[in-house]
C-alpha cells in the first residue's frame, strides 16, 4: 500500500530581503487507491509542492515520507531509484526526448529499468486508450500538443509506479481528452491501487478526484 505523507512542510527560497516562503506548514497524505487534486492559481506553489513530494527538492522544514521512508534520509542515488521504481512523474507537454520516437520513449525506460514495467499488451492497451496507438513511430515534433501530453502520461504510467505525481497533465488537452485522462487516472487509482496526486488549475478534473485540495499563498487546505 503506497502512501505519501508531507508533515509540516515549509519551503523558503532566498534570504533576507529576497526571502520568499512558497509553502507554509503543509500537511498532506494520500494512500493507494486515491486520486488527490491540488488546485491553485499560477504561483501558488503547486509545482514546488510536487517536486518536494517527489524528492526532487528538499523542504526547508518538515518531513516527506513515502511508504514510511523519510526522503531526507535517502542518498541522491536512492532517491533516483525511488523515482525510477516507485514514482511516475507526468510533466507538462514538450518534456519528451525529442530524438526518440514514441515507441523509443518506452524503450528508454526498459534500458534503465528492465523489470516491473507494463507488458507489451498492457502498453498497447494504454496507448489505444489514450488514442496515441497510431503515432508510435513518430517523433515528438510530429505530434500535436495534446498527443505529446498523452505520450508523457503513457510514459509515466509505463514504469508502473505506485505513486503518480502529475504536473498540469491536461494543460494541452481539449475537454473530451480531459475526460479520457481524468477517467484513466481515476481508474488507475481505483483498479490498480495507485496513489495519484495531480497539481493543476484545470477545474475540469475536479469530478474525478477523491480529495480536492486548495493551495493558496503556500497554504494547503482540504476542501470539505
Amino acid at each position: 500500500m503506497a502512501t505519501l505523507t508531507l508533515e509540516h512542510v515549509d519551503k523558503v527560497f532566498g534570504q533576507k530581503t529576497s526571502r520568499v516562503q512558497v509553502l507554509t506548514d503543509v500537511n498532506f497524505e494520500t494512500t493507494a487507491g486515491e486520486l488527490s487534486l491540488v488546485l491553485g492559481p499560477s504561483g501558488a506553489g503547486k509545482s514546488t509542492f510536487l517536486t518536494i513530494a517527489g524528492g526532487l527538492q528538499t523542504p526547508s522544514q518538515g518531513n516527506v515520507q513515502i511508504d514510511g521512508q523519510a526522503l531526507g534520509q535517502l542518498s541522491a542515488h536512492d532517491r533516483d531509484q525511488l523515482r525510477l521504481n516507485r514514482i511516475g512523474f507526468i510533466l507538462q507537454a514538450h518534456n519528451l526526448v525529442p530524438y526518440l520516437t514514441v515507441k523509443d520513449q518506452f524503450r528508454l525506460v526498459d534500458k534503465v529499468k528492465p523489470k516491473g514495467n507494463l507488458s507489451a499488451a498492457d502498453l498497447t492497451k494504454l496507448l489505444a486508450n489514450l488514442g496515441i496507438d497510431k503515432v508510435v513511430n513518430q517523433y515528438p515534433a510530429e505530434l500535436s500538443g495534446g498527443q505529446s501530453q498523452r505520450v508523457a502520461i503513457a510514459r509515466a504510467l509505463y514504469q508502473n509506479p505506485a505513486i503518480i505525481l502529475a504536473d498540469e497533465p491536461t494543460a494541452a488537452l481539449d475537454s473530451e481528452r480531459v475526460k479520457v485522462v481524468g477517467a484513466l487516472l481515476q481508474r488507475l487509482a481505483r483498479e490498480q491501487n495507485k496513489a495519484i496526486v495531480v497539481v493543476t488549475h484545470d477545474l475540469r478534473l475536479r469530478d474525478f478526484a477523491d480529495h480536492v485540495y486548495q493551495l493558496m499563498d503556500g497554504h494547503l487546505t482540504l476542501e470539505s
Partner: protein
Amino acid sequence: MFLALKEIRHEKLRYGLIIGMILLISYLVYVLSGLAYGLAQQNTQAIDSWDAQTVTLDRDANVSLSQSLITTATANKLTLTKHQAYVGQAGVVAKAKGKTNVSTQFLGLDKTQFIAKNLKLTTGHKPTTNRQVVADTSLQNQGYRVGDHITLNSINTKFTIVGFTKNAKLNVAPVVYGTLGAWRTLRGVAPTMQASAIVSQKSGKTTTSPLKTYSVQAFVNELPGYSAQNTTFGFMIGFLMIIAVVVIAVFLYILTMQKLPNYAVLRAQGIPARFLVGNTISQALVLVVSGLVLGALLTFATMRALPLGVPISFNLPLLGGVTLGILLTGVLGALIPVRLILKVNPVTVIGG
C-alpha cells in the same frame, strides 16, 4: 549507447557536421604525420636498410658523412669484422640523355662487405666493376632503366645502371650504390683515402685515432636539416592536437548544453546520472571513431592519389599513436561537460 545512437540517427545533419569536423582534423593530423614520417624516412631509409648500430667517422668531421674521410693508413690499423663495412659518400647529380637530372647520394661500397652483400635488388644484379651502379627505384620512376648509361657530375666516365633497389634514400636524396673505386673518382680523392665512414651492425667503439664512433641515432640526428624538420613537424602535430582538443571539447560542451533540458526531464524520472554520462561519453566515442575511420580512409585515398615523389609514409605505431591521441582527445572533450550533467537540476523543467 541507446540514446547516443538514436540521437545521431535523428540529428543527421548536426552530427554529420561534427563527424565531418573530426574527419578533417584527423585527416590533417594523419597527412601531416605521414608526411613527417615519410620525410624522416627519406633521410634514413638507406641507413635503416643496413640494420646498422654505429657509424664511425673522422672525429673532426662534425658528425657529417660528407665531411669525413678515412685514410688507408688509418684503415690499415683496423681489422673489420663481417658486421662492419666501409662506405664512401659523395653528393652527385645523375644525368642521362633525354632524362631528368637527379641529385643523388653516391655510396661506394666494398662488394665483400655486409652492405653490398645484403643489398636487395628489385631488378638487375649487383655492381661487379667500377663502372656499374645500382640505384634507388625512385630513379626508375623518373625514367631510368637497367642498362642506361649515366654520368655522375661532370666526370666523363659513363656508369651503367645494372640494378635497382628499394628504400635507398639518404638525406632525402636517392642513393646510387657503386664501388669504393668509383667513389674515389667522384669525390676526387687520392687512392690513399679508404672511405668516408665505417658502418657497423654491432655496437662498440673504435678507439683508433682519428676516428670516433657514433650511435646511428646520434649520426642521423646530425644529418643536415633532419632534427629541425622533425621538430617542426612535431610542433605542428602537437599544436594541431591541442587545437583538436579545444574544438572537439567546445562542440561537445555546446551539444551537452543544448540537451540539458532533456536530461533534466530524464533525471526527474529517475534516470541515473551515470546512464546519461555514459551516453555522453559513448556518443563522443562514436563521433570520434567515425571521424577517425573516415579520416583514415580519406588519407589512404590521398596517399594513392599523390604523386610518387611526395614523401608520405605510415607505420602501425605511428598510426596507432595518432589515432589513440585523437581518441583520448575526444574522451577528454566529452568529460568536460560531465559536471553539467551531474549538476543538472530536474526542478528546472517542472518550474516553481
